[in-house]
């Protein structure tokens, strides 16, 4: 979706809020929020794609005025309500339930963090459409839901510099469909191609793009 989250190149945001001494969390609730979001995802099967989609659905003014971790809280609450896990305004009733077997326990957490959640999929059976060195053009694609194609790249011409293998297609995952794996390529763009002739010549940018986002030049 062409949401406010897709902000690469937007003007008017002003100075960067640099704070060299800031704590990891400005308030304790921030830490609890990100930890909770990570933990509940393991049980409920929420992926980053699901979180991002909910965050991207915030109205532009809400997105911009919410703090970073507040967006996570909103997304988590919405995902849990959509999944029927919690209801609006619900509070704990009756006896506490026993721990769900999928819950990540403290003892298991360090190993879970060290393993992470690798998303790359086996690719021996897949035939890549593009090779390193190929000249490509970003398709003029619009998706109604979650996507990972920044607006600033539509129609721009670049060169494939890496083939990273197969990854689940975020649009499919966020829409609740099967993973629909596609190859992801790093594509190199000259700054002037993207931002026009007044941009510094020689500067460049790279974005990682799913195969569906690209066509041959």
């Amino acid at each position, binding site marked *: 979706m062409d949401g406010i*989250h897709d902000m690469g190149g937007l003007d008017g945001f002003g100075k960067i809020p640099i704070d060299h001494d*800031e704590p*990891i969390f400005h308030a304790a609730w921030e830490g609890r929020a990100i930890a909770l979001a990570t933990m509940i995802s393991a049980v409920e099967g929420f992926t980053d794609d699901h979180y991002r989609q909910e965050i991207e659905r915030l109205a532009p003014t809400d997105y911009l005025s919410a703090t970073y*971790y507040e967006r996570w809280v909103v997304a988590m609450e919405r995902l849990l309500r959509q999944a029927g896990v*919690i209801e609006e305004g619900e*509070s704990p009733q009756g006896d506490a339930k026993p721990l769900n077997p999928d819950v990540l326990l403290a003892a298991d957490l360090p190993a879970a*963090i060290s393993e992470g959640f690798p*998303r790359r999929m086996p690719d021996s059976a897949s035939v890549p459409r593009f090779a390193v060195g190929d000249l490509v053009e970003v398709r003029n694609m619009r998706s109604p839901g979650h996507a990972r194609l920044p607006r600033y790249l539509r129609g721009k011409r670049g060169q494939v510099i890496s083939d990273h293998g197969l990854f689940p297609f975020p649009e499919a995952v966020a829409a609740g469909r099967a993973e629909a794996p596609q190859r992801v390529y790093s594509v190199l763009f000259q700054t002037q191609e993207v931002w026009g002739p007044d941009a510094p010549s020689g500067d*460049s940018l790279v974005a*990682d793009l799913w195969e569906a986002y690209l066509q041959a030049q």
Partner: protein
Amino acid sequence: MSEQDHDHGSYNEVMTARVKALESLLTHKGLVDSAAVDLFIDLYETKIGPRNGAQVVARAWSDPGYKARLLADGAKAIAELGFSGMESEQLVVVENDAQTHNIVVCTLCSCYPWAVLGLPPTWYKSAPYRARVIKEPRSVLAEFGVALGEGVQVRVWDSTADLRYFVLPRRPEGSDKLDEKALADLVTRDGMIGTALV
């Protein structure tokens, strides 16, 4: 609701209550282990942070074989030093040199290499950084007080997919005699994102 609409105190009070209510509900339903929540916070506040990345950089500066492995497969190479996993499962390391200065962003959200840098700073996740660095990196670098050498070109890496990016800064002049520990002390978090030279 925003931090600007109310003073920080009352905003944080409201959010504290909101998150506490959610955690209580989920705990009551047996869906979360609060001790795991406590530990997650502790790990990212005290253990998993830029000192990890600094060790990787120092090793790469000291050992050409390690540097080659790091540039070929970042995730595999950082695992040699015991770093791995969440938000760095697929890691690409980009090297600054005399011709190129690299800088990393996630214009669409906040993707960041947690295993080597910990959690991202507020500025990295901010609208000004995300909007501006992809279009005017030199202006952003100036705000960070970074002056690039003559003829150095800038390459911005937008973390739009599942790859996470990490900058290998240039080894400072005059650091030849330093051991790995001293070298690691030279490396800053911002140097590994690209908003500092080292």
